[in-house]
């Protein structure tokens, strides 16, 4: 723990400008899975299947049950297929629903998988969709939310054209921050329905509430006053004792605007004294996987009564002050707040608690 997977790449994938990112090793077997009939899956599907497999094994749940729903979170899926081939069969792989069906199909799940594609907030939006499905649809007992993203010339060149990437390891919330790093990842969480009478095992992580709100301001820049994020925070924390919150895992992409906006929203919500971290310094911004992966890391931290340090922050400096956690520390809190924002003006907040026998 405590090391960054981010490194510099030069001339990779034919991209003229060097970039800092967290990428899978090309030879990693998890990138090259195939079906039981020997049909090769694409990188995107491969990593999603690997993450889901691990989750089902740990949970000891049968993925082929009609009580299980698959929700896939991604921004671009197999978009690299647009370049790799003019073959219509390969181009079909670029359709997100097609990849989702291959993923769910690998597990012989009978339900049509749902794809959530809501820019950077996809991972959290997908979890909120899972929450609502379990709450209001009697058919489903378990929902697996798989967040996955692979990078490519398409994605990296695009962020470079935005001048949004930092030429070095990113520094979330830092006064000298200068942009984000991108990362590849796949992560899966299985949410299960529980009744109020059922007693849950100790250390179960519970999603208490979630909200998605739009700034209605600009398609690629966040609202300077954090309108949408503030609304989402208010929605999930009303009727909740915020003193229980051990930490806020923010989006913290290390761009000038995002980190400033989050600092404003957190202050306006009166939560500025709660320790804040960003995990982007470890794996970069993993886009469609971010919301899922960061909830997993935050959950494990909470189960261990830890607050993870915000790797990369040396000298906090945002529009409004934040209590940035710069060293791994202990906590007595039994809740965490996940914040995330993305292109299209979307913002999400998810509130989680730790089940503890008192």
């Amino acid at each position, binding site marked *: 723990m405590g090391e960054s997977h981010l490194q510099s790449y030069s001339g990779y994938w034919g991209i003229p400008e060097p970039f800092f990112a967290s990428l899978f090793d090309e030879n990693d077997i998890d990138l090259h899975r195939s079906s039981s009939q020997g049909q090769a899956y694409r990188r995107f599907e491969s990593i999603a299947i690997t993450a889901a497999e691990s989750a089902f094994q740990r949970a000891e749940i049968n993925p082929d049950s009609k009580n299980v729903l698959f929700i896939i979170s991604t921004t671009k899926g197999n978009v690299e297929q647009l370049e790799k081939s003019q073959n219509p069969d390969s181009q079909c792989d670029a359709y997100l629903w097609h990849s989702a069906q291959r993923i769910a199909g690998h597990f012989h799940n009978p339900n049509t998988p749902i794809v959530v594609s809501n820019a950077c907030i996809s991972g959290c939006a997908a979890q909120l969709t899972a929450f609502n499905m379990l709450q209001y649809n009697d058919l489903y007992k378990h929902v697996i939310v798989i967040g996955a993203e692979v990078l490519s010339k398409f994605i990296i060149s695009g962020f470079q*054209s*935005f*001048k949004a990437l930092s030429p070095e390891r990113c520094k979330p919330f830092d006064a000298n921050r200068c942009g984000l790093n991108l990362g590849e990842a796949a992560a899966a969480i299985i949410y299960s329905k529980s009744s109020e009478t059922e007693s849950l095992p100790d250390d179960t992580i519970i999603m208490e509430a979630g909200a998605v709100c739009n700034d209605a301001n*600009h398609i*690629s*820049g966040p609202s300077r006053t954090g309108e949408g994020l503030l609304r989402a925070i208010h929605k999930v924390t009303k009727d909740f004792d915020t003193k229980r919150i051990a930490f806020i895992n923010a989006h913290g992409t290390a761009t000038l605007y995002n980190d400033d906006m989050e600092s404003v929203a957190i202050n306006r919500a009166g939560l500025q004294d709660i320790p804040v971290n960003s995990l982007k310094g470890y794996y970069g911004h993993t886009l469609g996987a971010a919301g899922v992966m960061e909830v997993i890391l935050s959950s494990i931290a909470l189960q261990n009564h830890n607050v993870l340090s915000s790797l990369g922050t040396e000298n906090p400096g945002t529009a409004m002050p934040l209590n940035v956690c710069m060293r791994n520390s202990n906590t007595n809190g039994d809740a965490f707040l996940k914040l995330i924002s993305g292109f299209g003006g979307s913002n999400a907040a998810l509130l989680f608690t730790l089940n503890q026998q008192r």
Partner: protein
Amino acid sequence: MEELIYKLKEEIIDVLNLEGMKPEDIDENAPLFGEGLGLDSIDALELIVLLEKNYGIKLKNANEGKEIFKSVRVMADYINEHKTK
């Protein structure tokens, strides 16, 4: 110089999708951002691409654009001085 200004106006209208506008509608001395055409941050980034693609001028970072894109005339002066194409 006047030729470059006219050509630049045409290119700006084209790359920024300023529908229905003609070069005659753009005042080369008026601010491009803020008032005037009311361009935004994405437009500024697109103008940076225009400088490189059409004139071979590569800016080191987006902030340099703030001074260069003050008006069409300021842009044209900069291009005259730095173009490599």
